[in-house]
């Protein structure tokens, strides 16, 4: 009985706080999000509350709330899922902050301005366990991975489970001249003993234990492995695909919340906000390429000089995601 009373009291407090002045609710999957939220709150005085989850549950929450959205802005890596939210009319269109974008930033800005890119990593780089594949024998290109010397040594994630992997697959398809050529490339990879694991975590574990020698994973995860002093080195096969971290604003939010969300985006893209992002998660997400003129990535990040990258157009590849992932699961995984 006592517990029921307590539970009811908790409910009442929760309800009354829910009815108070609008606060900005941030749904985010970024490693540095808590630091950014704290700094933003301190700088602006706007009460900001965070829901931090990995991309899968985060997007599921947003979609399940469609009828009655509870979030002010949503922030994660991967343009395709953001595109899908935009196409469902969930994101505020037509606004971008006035900032000095660099070339990478300009390449990532969506034409309908339905979300704002604020960082970039690479969707798939090669992380090589040098105990299995000696550094001087490491692969350099996508074609290299088909060589017999790497048979059974290459691993990657399943795009239909791991969020950042679809941009990698789409990027490889694009780089191999389109869907047909790209699918053939993956079939050749499979014939060369490609291992497909569900997520980054499993793939990296297999890499560290030596079960595989080469993992194709997101660049920030690879840099994290280097920083943890795992015996690995990175290679950037030509071309690698950009994976933008973006923010979308709730189209249905009240004007007050929209104004607060815009301020949040402006803060994130300010020198102060970028400083927090670059230092908030040094072992992981902080290892990104800034999209603003004059800003440098953290010291651990490989300089862009010599890396050939491409951007993967979400308006082209986004709508094909379901079909390509199903093909991948049924043809490459099994």
């Amino acid at each position, binding site marked *: 009985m006592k*517990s*029921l009373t*307590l*539970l*009811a009291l*908790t*409910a009442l407090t*929760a309800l009354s706080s*829910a009815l108070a002045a609008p606060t900005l*609710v*941030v749904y985010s999957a970024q490693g540095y999000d808590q630091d950014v939220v704290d700094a933003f709150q301190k700088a602006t005085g706007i009460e900001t*509350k*965070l*829901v*931090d*989850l*990995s991309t*899968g*549950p985060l*997007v*599921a*929450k947003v*979609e*399940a*709330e*469609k*009828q*009655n959205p*509870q979030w002010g802005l949503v922030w994660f890596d991967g343009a395709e*899922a953001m595109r*899908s939210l935009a196409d469902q009319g969930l994101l505020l269109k037509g606004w971008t902050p006035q900032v000095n974008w660099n070339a990478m930033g300009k390449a990532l800005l969506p034409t309908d301005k339905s979300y704002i890119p604020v960082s970039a990593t690479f969707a798939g780089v090669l992380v090589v366990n040098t*105990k299995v594949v000696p550094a001087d024998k490491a692969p350099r290109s996508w074609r290299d991975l088909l060589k017999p010397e790497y048979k059974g040594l290459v691993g990657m994630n399943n795009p*239909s*489970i791991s*969020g950042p992997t679809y941009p990698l697959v789409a990027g490889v398809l694009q780089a191999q001249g389109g869907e047909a050529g790209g699918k053939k490339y993956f079939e050749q990879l499979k014939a060369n003993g490609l291992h497909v*694991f*569900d997520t*980054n*975590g*499993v793939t990296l*574990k*297999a890499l*560290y*234990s*030596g*079960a595989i020698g080469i993992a194709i994973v997101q660049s920030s995860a690879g840099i*994290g*492995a280097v920083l*943890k*002093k*795992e*015996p690995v080195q990175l290679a950037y096969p030509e071309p690698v695909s950009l994976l933008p971290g973006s923010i979308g604003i709730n189209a249905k939010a009240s004007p007050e919340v929209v104004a607060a969300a815009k301020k949040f985006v402006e803060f994130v893209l300010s020198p102060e906000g970028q400083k927090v992002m670059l230092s908030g*998660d040094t072992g*992981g*997400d902080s290892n990104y390429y800034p999209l603003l003129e004059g800003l440098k990535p953290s010291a651990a990040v490989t300089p862009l000089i010599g890396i050939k990258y491409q951007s993967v157009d979400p308006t082209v590849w986004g709508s094909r*995601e*379901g079909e390509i*992932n199903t093909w991948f699961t049924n043809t490459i*995984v*099994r």
Partner: protein
Amino acid sequence: MARASTLHRRPAPMGAGRLLARVALGSTGLAAILLLLVYPLVSFLLLAVFPGLFGQSGQGFSLAAFAQALDGYALQSVLNSLAIGLSSGALAVGLGLYVSWLTQRTTLSVRRLVDGAVWLLLLTPSYLLAIGWLVLTQHGGLLNQAGLHWGWLEAAFSGPIGVALVLAVKHIPFAYLAIAPSWNTIGGELEEAAQVHGIRGGQATLLLAKLLLPAIAAAFAVVFAEALSDFGVAATLGASSNVPLLTYSIYRALYANPLNFPLAAASSWILLALAGIAVWAQARVNRRAAAYAVLSGRGRLARRVVLGGYGKAVAWFSLGLLGLVALAIPALATVFMSFTKVLGDGLNWANLGLDNYQTVLRQGDLLGPLTYSGMLAGLAATTALVLALVLASVLSSGSRLARGLDVVLLGTLALPGLVLAAGYIFAYNQPFLPLYGTSLLLGMAYAAGAMPSSSRILLGPLTQLHHSLGEAARVHGVSGLGVLRRITLPLLAQPLLYAWLLAASGIVFELPASELLYPPGQPPLAVALLKSVHNFDFGLSTALEVVAVAIVVGTVWLIRAVVTRLLPPNWQRRLNEQHSH
């Protein structure tokens, strides 16, 4: 005459009171089930055929999701789940039968040891078991690094056999707890009677098996449902060895882009249908078993088998092996990993150290989530237990309502927590019920998740608490409150304590509802733990898990010790003990 008439009249108000109490009890149980389980689950499950509900993009009525759920990867996961549920159910029941025979029917003094191990195993999340075995047996794992290349073991654990084995081992406690009390209901007289009638050897074993059949069926149904609903093993061992299971394909449909709520709902229906098979089979067995019904209550103790030297050796060896497989090996592998500095540097002394634990100690921001989760777990477990007690007493009545309730409870046991959590969003993110995003709703989801298994655990002790005991006491002039204080509570105190501890410790680590329902800015422990190992730092994540499990097991042990000391001696009764002892 006058006295007789008062005596005759006395039961009437008692009966009315009792009727009122029963109606009140029944309607409380019903309301709880409806609000906490049925409404959110049905909200979610309807999406399978009405994909446009709750503002989703589908339209009208459609069976397309079922076609998807019975095709390709999804179909493979249905077949795998069925095969693995059946085999792990059979294995767990076989082992539970054997271990309970050892503790209940032989002179082997392992009762305390086995009970301790059973509770430890119940408290251990299934993914920890799976990860322990994975760390050990995978290619390049600990065994390989120690120079042992046992291809057969690696092959077994990177396929369906490993998945079934881990699921079976994890669920032995359910089988054990369901079967152990039944050994006692088959009292000594029965054996003597059988002997008098010249029934011996194979025939006697057959009779025994028939008498045990209801318990075996109940155990199998629970293990089958639990194995079907398990997500920890499916997401670790199953996923890394390409053995897709139904819960994992539901997870994929919900969490992978493009997400597909109708497919997840259709797969959930299939999961429910599979669990339904188990419920149906159990009901059939029970109907047949009615012919063999024996009333216990005052049965004499059966004679215990005196094990010889050889028998003892076999028993100890098999128990040791079981303990090794179920607890020691996964625990050692996990602890070992938590001491490893750099995973890629493998097995050597220089690579072991306390580094990960030092990092854990620096994670001061986990204290808030731990307190929040601990508080919520306490409240939710208490609520779950009160409701479970109500449900269990309805269940033990054997009425039609009870049978319906049994189906609902076993069904929810079979659905992964993820489905219930997603259902809570659809059901309670409504203008007329704006509870989504509050601690209250998270607590409700926790209580709802714990309720089905708690009521199953309490069902055994409650069934044994024959109502004739209460009636006898009242005839002897004990008041209603007195019955509660002197009979019901003493007999139920220990099972209630254990069920509460189990529910609370499960809730502290609960992930899917925590993720989908937590109030913004107020992360529960499971969410905070995930966040602090954001960057695939496996050594750190296992260290965190070891610390968290140690804290919870320590707290459980402490609460148990304190409560046991406070309880009067005659209230202290172990969960699987008969009151006829």
